[in-house]
């Protein structure tokens, strides 16, 4: 077991939220066509509120802190927030479009000890990238920002959301990331808007294109192994937790709302009226999420993919039942292996008609995470004991 896996296991056993994703604002200087957010400010937390929240998160045991948005650097107090987070010894990762990053900002982030900057890039071609962001000149400014971050010595991870409009440019973005000295990850996820609007799902790539994606060595490593039939289902798989949401990680909105995950919009409390730890430990919603065990899933527990599926309880919840199937993950499992899921068979399907899976979601199965997806990429891992 890797040190990271061991830390997560221990955090789950202790009930510690090892990772917190905090969106500092939903405002943004881009208007990406697939974005699930409403960009109006409906009463963001003040600096004092965020400062207090960070202190509570530190005392709760949060180690990995993801600061995101919207575009988090639009906040005038962004650097004060990062400084406060670093003073509390969080491992800080920032998700940004880097449009506002120049030499001075990059050097300041480096001096503050930010561990990684994740920058969204949709294409290596301005006409495609800028069409996604709806901000003319955004690719040029983002590349300048990445160069400044790299020159300052910061690690940069280029994150590429793949949609119909930019799928053909994936290899171009990967090559550009290499040239810039950044790591690269690709994600076919497009999620419904937070207000429930599902029209953005039309931007998703077709399921049939997933199959060719899963044959790409750069993304999945060994396609033969990646696309192998699902492993036999054993007791470990049956008793597994569905994911880290609500177990060792959580999401907090700019308005102080606490959710199990950014992709699991189940309101579980608000830090403006409750202490974070009270929400984390006692929220009925989080307790419900934590009660899910694979063996108890009404459809998925009998699925051949049980041992390798990345069923997202958040996406399942947006489909109506957090214990139900996540159609997008069924789709991925099917196009990866050619084996229909229990959900498909229950619906009388042996293949996916175009558009049946309404939601696109995070991830390739676990093996691919090593190559492409990891939310937190840590290398090398070493362990030292006193």
């Amino acid at each position, binding site marked *: 077991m890797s*040190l*990271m896996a061991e*830390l997560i296991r*221990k*955090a789950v056993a*202790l009930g*510690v939220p*090892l990772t917190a994703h905090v969106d500092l604002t939903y405002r943004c200087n881009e208007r990406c066509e697939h974005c699930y957010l409403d960009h109006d400010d409906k009463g963001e937390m003040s600096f004092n509120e965020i400062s*207090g929240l960070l*202190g*509570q998160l*530190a*005392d709760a*045991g*949060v*180690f990995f802190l993801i600061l995101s948005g919207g575009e988090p650097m639009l906040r005038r107090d962004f650097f004060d927030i990062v400084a*406060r987070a*670093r*003073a*509390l*010894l*969080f*491992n*800080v990762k920032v998700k940004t479009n880097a449009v506002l990053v120049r030499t001075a900002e990059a050097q300041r982030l480096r001096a503050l*000890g*930010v*561990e*990684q900057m994740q920058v969204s890039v949709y294409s290596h071609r301005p006409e495609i990238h800028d069409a996604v962001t709806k901000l003319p000149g955004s690719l040029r400014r983002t590349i300048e920002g990445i160069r400044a971050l790299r020159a300052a010595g910061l*690690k940069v991870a280029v994150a590429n959301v793949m949609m119909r409009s930019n799928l053909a440019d994936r290899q171009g973005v990967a090559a550009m990331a290499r040239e810039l000295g950044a790591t690269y990850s690709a994600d076919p996820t497009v999620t419904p808007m937070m207000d429930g609007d599902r029209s953005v799902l039309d931007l998703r790539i077709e399921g049939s294109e997933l199959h060719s994606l899963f044959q790409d060595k750069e993304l999945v490593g060994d396609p033969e192994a990646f696309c192998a039939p699902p492993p036999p289902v054993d007791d470990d798989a049956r008793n597994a937790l569905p994911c880290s949401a609500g177990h060792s990680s959580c999401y907090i909105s700019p308005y102080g709302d606490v959710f199990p995950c950014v992709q699991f919009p189940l309101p579980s409390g608000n830090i403006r009226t409750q202490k974070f730890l009270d929400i984390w430990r006692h929220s009925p919603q989080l307790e419900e999420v934590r009660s899910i065990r694979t063996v108890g899933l009404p459809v998925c527990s009998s699925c051949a993919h049980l041992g390798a599926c990345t069923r997202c309880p958040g996406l399942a919840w947006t489909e109506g039942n957090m214990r139900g199937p996540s159609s997008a993950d069924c789709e991925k499992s099917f196009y990866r292996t050619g084996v229909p899921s229990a959900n498909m068979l229950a619906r009388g399907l042996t293949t996916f008609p175009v558009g049946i899976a309404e939601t696109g979601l995070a991830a390739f199965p676990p093996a691919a995470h090593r190559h492409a997806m990891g939310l937190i*990429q*840590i*290398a*090398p*891992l*070493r*362990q*030292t*004991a*006193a």
Partner: protein
Amino acid sequence: MTPTYIARSTAVAARRLGDEMVVMSALDSTLFTLSEVGAVLWQAADGRTPLDEIVREHVCTAFSVDAGTALRDAEEFVRALAERGILLVSSQPIASPAAPQGEAAAASAAGEPR
């Protein structure tokens, strides 16, 4: 004997998880876990207290170990972490170590009312 002062690097992240201390260098993303004794040394690394005093006050009393053995182990531990940039080591007091963790401690470090 020249005293040894130790301070936490400002380029690390750290958090207690159960009886261990999780430490990660922002410079190279190297992740460590420190044992309970290591965590005690880490948290006492304020840049002002000599290492032998830290060992005497915090290690020997808490872990029932003789001072000579504890100091030798502590020196080896400090050397290993210093090589990885996790701890700063000097024969003089170190001026600006990292802030301590925790809400109350950080408020204190920032000069805010408790």
